[in-house]
């Protein structure tokens, strides 16, 4: 039953600032507003990289909800951010769109890894995400994301109303890459030739590094474990950047391969 009582929108906020302190990267400044929350910094042995988990305590976004995340890495800091679970976007019972905005600023010689988690747009949901990443000289980025067609196991495949995704990467204020997807299943046949075809899941990896030039992309390409419903490609963007795209029928298979490529690239930069 559709509730007639107006529900207050959630506006999750998370502002994180990382900086190096006594050999480790710390997150001394964090502002969090529910349902978004960040874990404290975790470390693996002597690695100075701060690992932080981002949590969404509401269980998902509902019509008109917003999530605003800002991440700032001061010079020479290193952070790895992991989303604790998939991002669920519920049916838009009011017709309003859920918005997720992520703004990242990477200062000189900083390094950020954002591990791919899945975005699941439920049937009749409306979702818009905008990610902007600004890098200064010497900064390193490794970023992944995966878009699901819906709750596939429940037979929800491209039943959402709209999904818009915008990714902009700037290096020294120059726009290096702009990826903009607009999936409105009522307007386009996403399984058409040249679109997603048989694929249901879309995965992307973005890498910016001063070492990008040295990466042998042919070797990466040839090592990709494709076939059996998974297609993948890798290409060099302008400047010191690399982009990988994965189109897959099976979520688990796509995620496993993306994680493998992610780790492979992470070790090279």
């Amino acid at each position, binding site marked *: 039953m559709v509730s007639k009582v107006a529900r207050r929108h959630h506006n999750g906020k998370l502002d994180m600032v990382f900086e190096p302190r006594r050999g480790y990267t710390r997150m001394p400044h964090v502002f969090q507003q529910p349902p978004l929350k960040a874990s404290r910094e975790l470390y693996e042995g002597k690695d100075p990289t701060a690992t932080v988990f981002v949590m969404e305590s509401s269980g998902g976004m509902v019509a008109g909800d917003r999530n605003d995340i800002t991440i700032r890495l001061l010079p020479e800091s290193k952070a790895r951010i992991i989303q604790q679970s998939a991002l669920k976007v519920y049916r838009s019972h009011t017709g309003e769109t859920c918005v997720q905005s992520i703004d990242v600023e990477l200062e000189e010689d900083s390094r950020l890894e954002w591990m791919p988690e899945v975005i699941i747009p439920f049937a009749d949901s409306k979702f818009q995400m905008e990610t902007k990443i600004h890098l200064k000289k010497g900064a390193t980025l490794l970023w992944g994301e995966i878009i699901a067609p819906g709750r596939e196991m429940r037979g929800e495949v491209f039943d959402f109303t709209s999904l*818009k995704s915008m990714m*902009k990467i700037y290096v020294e204020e*120059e*726009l*290096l*890459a*702009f*990826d*903009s*997807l*607009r*999936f409105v299943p009522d*307007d*386009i*046949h*996403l399984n*058409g*030739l*040249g*679109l*997603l*075809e048989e*694929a249901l899941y*879309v995965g992307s990896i973005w890498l910016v590094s001063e070492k990008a030039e040295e990466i042998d*992309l*042919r070797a990466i*390409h*040839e090592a990709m474990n494709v076939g059996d419903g998974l*297609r*993948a*490609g*890798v*290409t*060099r*963007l*302008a400047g010191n950047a690399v*982009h990988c*795209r994965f*189109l897959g029928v099976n979520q688990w298979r796509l995620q496993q391969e993306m994680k493998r490529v992610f780790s492979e690239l992470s070790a090279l930069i």
Partner: protein
Amino acid sequence: MKQQNDDSSNLSNTAAIPTDIQFLRLLQIHDSAFPIGTYTQSYGMETYIQEDAIRTKEELIAFCTTFLYQNLVYGDAILIQEAHQAAKDRDIDRLLHLENLCGAIKLAKESRDASVNLGRQFIKTVSPLVEDAFFDEWKNRIAANEIKGHYAILYGIYCAVNSMDAHYAVLSYLFSSVNGLVTNAVRAVPFGQNTGVQAVHVLAEEAVAAAGIVVGLTEADISNNALGIELASMKHEYLHSRLFIS
């Protein structure tokens, strides 16, 4: 593909109809023999051909239709329209922004390179034919390597300084792009000449409908849903034998 109806997509009653000489100039620059290298580009289509995914006329039309509606309409066509307006306004900052954007949206390296190669060939070919200070200024920026010289931007400027209407600039660009793809598919698959002719006949109507969509779009609408084609363009770099450079 959703299409607008004939009434709303037929803009010939609102757009300035080209003069006879403008019409012929457009025919000339979009002729397949015009030396900008269109015949060397497949924009990922060759990957599909090698994977045996384009075997019939229907598949060829389907590929070109996706490229038209999901890539060109929401990419180059918007940029041509915006560059045309910026050139009319003599707004260099806006053009520099569009030039940058044109490279940023082309994620696959070969498609991005194709855009620059066509642009560089185009400026080399037309610059002895154009006398316009604004056009020369853009040409000098390319020569000085200040900008890459993406084809869509240059073409929009060229049409603007020659007072050609933006609608006809976009319409002829869309048609010539799919026409070029079909010509290349006829050679590469191969298809008979009649299959190519029939495909282009169908695609002409799609180009008209597509141009009808473009007129209502702005920079904010730029997107690319043709992920299969983009992926094919990325994979094309690593094909073992290739007829085309993209």
